[in-house]
């Protein structure tokens, strides 16, 4: 089966990759529309990088089908490579080359026409804010600079689709914000962005998210959809004294299924927020935890992810133990 889809920037059907007996990516299917930011969210080892490598044509899938920028991932990997930008986790920059030398190198690789070369180089330097460091060795740049330079090098050839593999790991929060501003700027021009991350809060920046866990896509949708539709239970936010002790105590309250620390407060999972609020508040007051806030909230992505993972683990546990 081949899939060549021109409506979507990325289309994947039942994509699977096995390494020996280990299935790194297990029958994953999704579509990404042009101009969209699609976030692939999951813990390390969930199969995020393997998926991105298959989409970029640098790793052959075991089975399944898909297309990227209109080219088939099974048969046209070289064409795909010419039409995408790929920024790996490790920022493939040459540390011993200067900023300009790195850009020149990638211009050569992507065969940027001579007349455009200078313009693109200036664009990258401007975008990354490296005007005063053109001749600096890449090794001395901070994480944020390297990240923006790597992004610039990956999109020198103005590809319609870009893949970013954990682009913000190792970057301070300030640079992370700047980076997302750049990404929005790019998507504003119609570029499609496929990004992987294990930061829950970062996933909120995406238009749509796929949650991956142990090689499988366990949920797919906009952040709003995921938060409102994928979690059966309600979440209550609690601000109180000694949250770490309260966390264990509140599990005794009728209707409370689980409690977890969230920032400095607690997130309490309950079957029905409305019914539990009162009981929870009076319990906390009685036990001397001095609650300042107990209210039902839209669950965070983390709440949703945890709830999905735990539901899945519970379903799989019996057979796992026998196998292990």
């Amino acid at each position, binding site marked *: 089966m081949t899939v060549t889809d021109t409506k979507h920037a990325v289309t994947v059907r039942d994509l699977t990759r096995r390494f020996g007996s280990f299935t790194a990516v297990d029958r994953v299917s999704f579509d990404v529309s042009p101009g969209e930011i699609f976030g692939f969210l*999951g*813990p*390390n*080892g*969930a199969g995020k990088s393997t998926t991105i490598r298959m989409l970029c044509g640098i790793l052959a899938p075991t089975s399944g089908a898909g297309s990227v920028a209109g080219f088939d991932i099974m048969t046209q990997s070289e064409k795909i490579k010419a039409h995408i930008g790929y920024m790996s986790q490790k920022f493939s920059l040459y540390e011993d080359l200067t900023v300009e030398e790195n850009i020149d190198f990638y211009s050569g690789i992507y065969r940027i026409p001579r007349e455009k070369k200078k313009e693109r180089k200036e664009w990258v330097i401007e975008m990354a804010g490296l005007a005063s460091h053109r001749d600096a060795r890449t090794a*001395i*740049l*901070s*994480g*944020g*600079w390297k990240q923006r330079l790597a992004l610039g090098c990956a999109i020198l050839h103005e590809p319609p689709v870009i893949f970013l593999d954990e682009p913000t*790991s*190792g*970057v*301070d*929060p*300030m*640079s992370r*914000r*700047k980076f*997302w501003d750049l990404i*929005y700027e790019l998507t504003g021009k119609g570029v499609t962005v496929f990004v992987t991350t*294990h*930061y*829950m*809060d970062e996933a*909120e*920046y995406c238009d749509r998210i796929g949650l991956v*866990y*142990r090689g499988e896509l366990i949920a797919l949708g906009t*952040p*709003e959809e995921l938060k409102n539709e994928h979690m059966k239970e309600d979440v209550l936010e609690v601000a109180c004294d000694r*949250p*770490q002790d309260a*966390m264990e105590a509140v599990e005794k309250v009728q209707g409370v299924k689980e409690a*977890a*620390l*969230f*920032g*400095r407060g607690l997130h309490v999972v309950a079957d029905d927020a409305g019914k539990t609020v009162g009981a929870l508040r009076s319990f906390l007051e009685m036990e001397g935890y001095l609650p300042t806030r107990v209210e039902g909230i839209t669950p*965070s*992505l*983390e709440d949703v*992810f*945890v709830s999905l*993972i*735990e539901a899945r*683990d519970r379903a799989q546990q019996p057979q796992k*133990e026998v196998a*292990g």
Partner: protein
Amino acid sequence: MMQPAIASENLSKSFGPVAAVDGLTLSVDHGEIFGLVGPDGAGKTTTMRLLTSIMDPDSGQARVCGRDTVSEAEAVKERIGYMSQRFGLYPDLSVMENMEFYADIYGVPRKGRAEKIERLLSFSNLTPFKKRHAGNLSGGMKQKLGLACALIHTPEVLFLDEPTNGVDPASRRDFWRILYQLLKEKVTIFVSTAYLDEAERCNRIGLMHEGRLMALGTPGQVKKLMRGSIVEVRAARPRQAKEILKKSLPDAEVGLFGDRVHVVTDTPENTEAETIRILSKAGVEVSGARLIEPSLEDVFVSVLGKDGGRRE
């Protein structure tokens, strides 16, 4: 007065021209959980290595459990548990074999050892996986095994270098539950993290950036360093709302936090009303704007100021 569990003074370490740790001075009390917060490359790992006596500083000094980390390195090592950022156990050895190995290395007496291992395994929910090779554990389980091995000799101080980095959120929650359990047993914990929400759970934190501590104190104290106040705006189209507010409020700092827009301002009372007015006028539906306590990320950005990401 009792000596602090960890005390460092002007600790510095450079690699070539790069100062990985630059004049670090801090102290951590017994039974405290201290969070070292900062992005990769801020110097967290180097700090960990200096404090655990596996790397010598260029200058300055540190005492852990009252012992000097350079001249009494071995005494320090007997009293601490350390979990490095990279998985430090043997993938081809089983969970049990790894535990036994570290029990021998730390000279844990044979008597009572079996019970101790059992307790640590059940504590970290690893009992069903005793015979599994460590390499075949999931990321979250590996971290728990690392923790169990680091605890085998009942250390006074536990050093954890980004223990939950890249681990799934369910395992992360589990891991923190275990840490709180340990605090009740009076273990001092020194943990580094890049997750700012985790840092809020520590007794005290240090914000680290490019080798230096930018702020030190309880999360509450650190948050007071924030310049201005934060108005959180919930709008239907947050990205668009952010752009509009950025243009309309040139004096304020406007940023996107997940699906909310944060506006940093010196005049929060006016801003609440103003943001609603601006956005409504632009046709963006606003579901609420309120003054909130800053998150650590807000503080971080504020403390780093406009020079964030620059290296002198």
